[in-house]
């Protein structure tokens, strides 16, 4: 069973992040890097904000990230999460990818155990719209 309920809306890819989500469907987490100035960037954009290059390469991230920050959600602001509160929303940092960060969840860590600096490893879960989304487990 996925961390959030199947009624929680899944990703809705747009022109800029379609490729990111396409890779996710192949269970590959990839971030954009500019071949010209080597800067990573996320979320995806068509132009490098540093050097304005239109060139893009997609670099596969390591499977290990770090909890940069997080919150434990207690108030159900959406009907689909009424049955799952309290749950966490975590900001996962990838230091080796220029500190690109993902908003995600750590699926096997309880509210009192969550902490900044925790190492987590990538897992794939199916969202309600049958798209794969990157989530994380405590690194063993």
């Amino acid at each position, binding site marked *: 069973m996925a961390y*959030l309920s199947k009624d*929680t*809306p*899944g*990703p809705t890819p747009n022109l800029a992040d379609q490729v990111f989500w396409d890779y996710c469907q192949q269970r590959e987490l990839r971030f954009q890097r500019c071949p010209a100035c080597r800067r990573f*960037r*996320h*979320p995806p954009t068509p132009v490098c*904000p540093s050097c304005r290059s239109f060139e893009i390469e997609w670099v596969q991230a390591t499977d290990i990230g770090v909890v*940069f*920050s*997080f*919150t*434990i*959600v*207690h*108030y159900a*602001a*959406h009907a689909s*999460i009424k049955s*799952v509160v*309290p*749950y966490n*929303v*975590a*900001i996962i*940092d990838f230091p080796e990818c220029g*500190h*690109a*960060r*993902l*908003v*995600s*969840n750590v699926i096997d860590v309880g*509210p009192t155990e969550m902490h*900044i600096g925790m190492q987590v490893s990538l897992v794939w879960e199916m*969202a309600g719209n049958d798209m794969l*989304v990157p*989530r994380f487990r405590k690194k063993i």
Partner: protein
Amino acid sequence: MVPFGMFSPPIMIAPLVQRYVHEFGAQPEHFGEVALVCRENARRNPRAVMGDRALTMHDYLNSRMISEPLRLYDCCQENDGACALIVTTLERARDLRQKPVLILAAAQGGSAGWGDGALGSHNMPIEEYGLGNGASLAKELYQRAGVSPKDVDVVQVYDHFTGCVLMTLENFGFCGRGEAGPFVADGNIRWPNGSLPLNTSGGHLSEAYIHGLNLAVEGVRQLRGESSSQVDKAEVCLVTAGLTASPVSAALLGV
């Protein structure tokens, strides 16, 4: 960010406050002090929505968690309401019945990268993550107005969440980085005796959430000498907008 349960502003802002706590050791009582100051100011303001409801630190600390570390009283209200400002030349304003207040300077903008900030993917510049987007704007605002933080008599800070008030006090130079918690705990933002009375109408937390404009109106009241928590001899008032998004803005009002 909806697929991961980031549905509402408290959930979007809470990780910034969590990071701020992690980096600087801010205590729940520091955030609570902001909530209490706003409520006490609201209690003197007949227009304030929360004007008839007292709030104690015990109430604050025991209020329910919304999105950790944000408790109920860390979050502003949602209200229907309206207010207005009339902006004109000083020459015209002098012919009107009300005492004119000057816009010493206004600035809008912020640091690069905050479009991917708290309301987006949380990929704003990592060194500013727990601080909000505002330090560069503050510098420019003071330069344009020709004043410095020590010239400011009273502040109206965008208090969508108490933690963002602490970040704003630092970004606008009223205390050093990470020092806003002890700064408010020392009574500095209390009316009437603090060095920098804050949100003297009750702010968004306790007057009403009219998306920043009620803060500007209260700034005008202070400089006209008409506030329900009037600061003695107030001549310069800072009014800020919410610093967790992009662009951000602020104004310095004077007489």
